[in-house]
């Protein structure tokens, strides 16, 4: 507190303005400090909960979707191979029926 007052006194030209500056300064500083603290707190919480949400959704994705993608990819490869073989052997592709 003392350091602040000295600092305020040094920078201020007149007595009136120095007091004003001091008051505003201290209020802003305390408010700023509070706001900064709150922001840090909130962002910490937010970060933590985002992290948790990401963790849960990531693991869920890993369990539900990744095997499906791999298996579908394999199936597509298999189909392609079969198609290639069919074209090599010269069998006509099955015509679509209405």
């Amino acid at each position, binding site marked *: 507190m003392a350091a602040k007052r000295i600092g305020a006194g040094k920078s201020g030209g007149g007595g009136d303005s120095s007091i004003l500056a001091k008051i505003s300064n201290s209020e802003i500083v305390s408010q700023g400090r509070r706001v900064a603290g709150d922001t840090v707190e909130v962002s910490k919480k937010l970060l933590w909960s985002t992290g948790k949400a990401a963790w*849960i959704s990531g*693991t*869920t994705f890993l*369990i*539900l*979707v990744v*095997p*499906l993608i791999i*298996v*579908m990819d*394999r*199936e597509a490869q*298999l189909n392609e191979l079969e198609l290639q073989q069919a074209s090599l052997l010269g069998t006509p592709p099955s015509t679509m029926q209405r």
Partner: protein
Amino acid sequence: MADLFPPLAAAQVDAKSKVDEKVDYSNLPCPVPYEELHREAFMSLKSDNFEGLRFDFSKALNQKFSLSHSVMMGPTEVPSQSSETIKIPTAHYEFGANYYDPKLLLIGRVMTDGRLNARVKADITDKLVVKANAQLTNEPHSSQAMFNFDYMGKDYRAQLQLGHSALVGATYIQSVTPRLSLGGEVFWAGVPRKSGIGYAARYETDKMVASAQVASTGAIVMNYVQKISEKVSLATDFMYNYFSRDVTASVGYDYILRQSRVRGKIDSNGVTSALLEERLSMGLNFLLSAELDHKKKDYKFGFGLTIAAAVSASGFG
């Protein structure tokens, strides 16, 4: 211009035949059995996830007789009061003998912890089927026995159940329209003296199956399965108990491919589970199972191998 007419005429004929089909109430299809009302949804959603290792081997000795061996290793949950799940490692061996015949089916299972399970299914005539199921354990008062008499009519099915401890039940299901079937059940149990009734409805088309069941025990079950294609189906179910007020809903997919089958599910308790069955070669299947419960911090992973030597391999479970 001439091209336009044949489809139109065909459509008209189609519509006509559809109307005729709807009017013809004397020729309705036979409904599914009452206990299999939800079978499509169960097939997609009730995958038997396991933890640890599972190894199944079955060998057909001849056309009708087969033996099976299975080994299960891994942690099993122990029921406890606290919310934390307690698991102890266990290992089981199960020996089974099966006899398949078009008219008679006999299945026996013995486990190393002394449990014995026997099932008999006999077709007495084309319409009447008798099923018996017995479960014997070495603990007193936990052995069970059950007899079912199924009668299949032209557009209805009826079943009479007789169980140990004076359980008597009957179910009846009737096709109302070609797509809709309605059923009901009555049961009366002697030892914990109680009785109840239930109703069920099932509606199916080529693309979807919806079923609902309500019982006087307070349970309400609703299922809906949408078949997106021959390979893919999406299923959802909703369970509600009127007396205990607990609700569970789940949604899942079932993807059947040429060499594998994947089933995934997520439910309203936050439990995610998936089961991958991969066919490595003829008669050799590889299983991967995963189940995540973030709320309880309970993660289950399992892998298994199913080997079926020679003809039949469908007697597990």
